[in-house]
């Protein structure tokens, strides 16, 4: 009796091993379809990807650092810093007569360049001065938060041109059923006419960037070295890998992606706040861990991290559409994170 019970448990474990995340996402979707009427709609998919872009980008950022065995606690406030910087720059540029498209483009490039700086400082502290990643990036969190608040003086940064939200809230295709279709520009239609909107711009941008960094991690020398660093630091050093430069690179990438997520935020919500990404650290780390990466470093893939992020994105939209307050989401993400860790531990012991 007892043996048959344990063999059932074993069969269940091996069937679920490494696959419980997709199953969990499916369960979430089924639950929310019953819970909220609007959820059972193909459009929900692109909406949840739309609201999830920050999580996708910041989780990818965090994954790079976590694979090396480190952690970047500053990502959320680097994101906030980038929202503030980008909007202030656009406003300044437009004030001196630069056209909106040029101002947006220049400010984006400048913000990405400035946004890498916190990461370079983090990386230098960790690699060269041997400051523990937790302390280095925690301090950077405070520094970024403080600088952002000083810049905006306690009020949200505003002043983006309408073009910004046209891009941030726009779609690649628009189809007016039975009439016409267009790219990028929403067709002028009488009020109340249904327009099919397909593929949000920022979702496409996000996934192109995420795919690029997935490629870096899986197919380049840099990526291979990142795994080696987390697997055995001594082996990496003795193999002649420029370990310090690699660590610097990893924290710079983290900061770069967080800044990009901040710029995307600014385009979506046309406002910049120091704490725009305050809740994102939990989401990002949860996505990485749910995706099966070890906090001790050496493992994890972008693909599985995206599945982890999807768990959170589905939860986020499901709760919004069910009218449940965001505070509940913090609790649930925390619980799922712990569940993921326990689940992986159990699977490891079983196999």
């Amino acid at each position, binding site marked *: 009796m007892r043996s048959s019970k344990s063999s059932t448990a074993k069969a269940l474990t091996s069937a679920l091993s490494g696959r419980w995340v997709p199953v969990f996402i499916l369960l979430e979707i089924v639950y929310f379809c019953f819970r909220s009427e609007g959820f059972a709609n193909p459009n929900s998919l692109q909406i949840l990807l739309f609201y999830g872009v920050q999580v996708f980008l910041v989780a990818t950022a965090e994954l790079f650092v976590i694979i090396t065995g480190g952690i970047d606690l500053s990502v959320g406030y680097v994101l906030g810093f980038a929202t503030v910087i980008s909007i202030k720059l656009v406003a300044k540029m437009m004030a001196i007569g630069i056209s909106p498209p040029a101002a947006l483009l220049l400010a984006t490039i400048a913000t990405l360049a400035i946004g890498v700086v916190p990461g370079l400082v983090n990386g230098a502290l960790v690699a060269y001065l041997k400051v523990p990643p937790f302390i280095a990036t925690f301090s950077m969190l405070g520094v970024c938060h403080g600088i952002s608040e000083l810049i905006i003086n306690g009020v949200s940064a505003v002043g983006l041109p309408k073009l910004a939200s046209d891009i941030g809230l726009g779609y690649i295709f628009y189809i007016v059923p039975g009439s016409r279709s267009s790219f990028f520009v929403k067709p002028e239609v009488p009020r109340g006419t249904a327009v099919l909107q397909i593929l949000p711009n920022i979702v496409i941008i996000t996934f192109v960037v995420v795919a690029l960094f997935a490629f870096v991690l899986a197919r*380049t020398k840099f990526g291979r070295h990142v795994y*080696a660093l987390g697997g055995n630091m001594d082996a990496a050093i003795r*193999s002649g890998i420029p370990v310090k430069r690699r660590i610097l690179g990893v924290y710079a990438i983290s900061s770069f992606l967080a800044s990009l997520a901040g710029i995307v935020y600014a385009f979506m919500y046309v406002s910049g706040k120091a704490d725009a990404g305050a809740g994102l650290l939990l989401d990002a780390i949860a996505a990485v861990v749910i995706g099966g990466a070890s906090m001790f470093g*050496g493992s994890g893939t972008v693909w599985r991290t995206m599945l982890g992020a999807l768990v959170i994105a589905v939860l986020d939209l499901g709760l919004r559409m069910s009218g449940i307050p965001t505070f509940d989401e913090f609790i649930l993400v925390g619980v799922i994170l712990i569940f993921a860790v326990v689940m992986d531990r159990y699977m490891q012991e079983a196999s």
Partner: protein
Amino acid sequence: MDYILEARNVTKRFGGLTAVDRVSIGLRAGEAFALLGDNGAGKSTLIKIISGVHKPDEGEIFINGKRARIEAPMDALAAGIETIYQDLALAENLDVGANIFLGRERMKRRFGALRVLDDPSMAEESQKVLDRLDIKIPSLKKMIRTLSGGQRQAVAISRSIYWDAKVLIMDEPTAALGVAEQRKVLDLVRTLKDQGIGIILISHQMYDIFEVADRLAVMRRGVKVGERIVKETSPDEVVSLMMGTEEVRKDR
């Protein structure tokens, strides 16, 4: 026959302690030279001098009869001297090919300018060197973590051989291995000898030494107290050299 590696009168002091005191050893191609001695006898310091970790205070190193400047681990590697440490220095989360090529990855071009990892060719080359050394590993796609202690050792050795080691320093290669695995490592040492690699073997296992070594040197308190041809000595004599009883008998 000429030595491929020779240490002449090397001395290393740490503060007031003389860890290695005017020690000379020579190694020929295709031979295994065992280094014995109690803990603290100076074996580890001696091999660290040869592998460039420590700089000797006195004495010289010769490679193929020529004076060599070995002041850093990279100098030793460039001279074809590789050390297999007990911890093996493998990234356990990567596969066999990735480890053999770690830090020296093979790349291929994609879409013109993009350089990507050439894993198939690294795996193929790894298989070649494993075959050459008669090492059997079920799948090169497996992470090092899933391999046995002996297999890991074999991977670490293959990496050195692939990168053209002429001298292999092995520090307690059979410690922490099961009996069957110990045998395999000894077989591997024989294969390496057949291929002309010189091996410096540190071991506490008398059996290993009498099984594969050609010559041996015994160290005590930093001094080389004896050198023997393995065929012409016995475990008893070696032990007494290590303990110092041999010397006492000679004095009388």
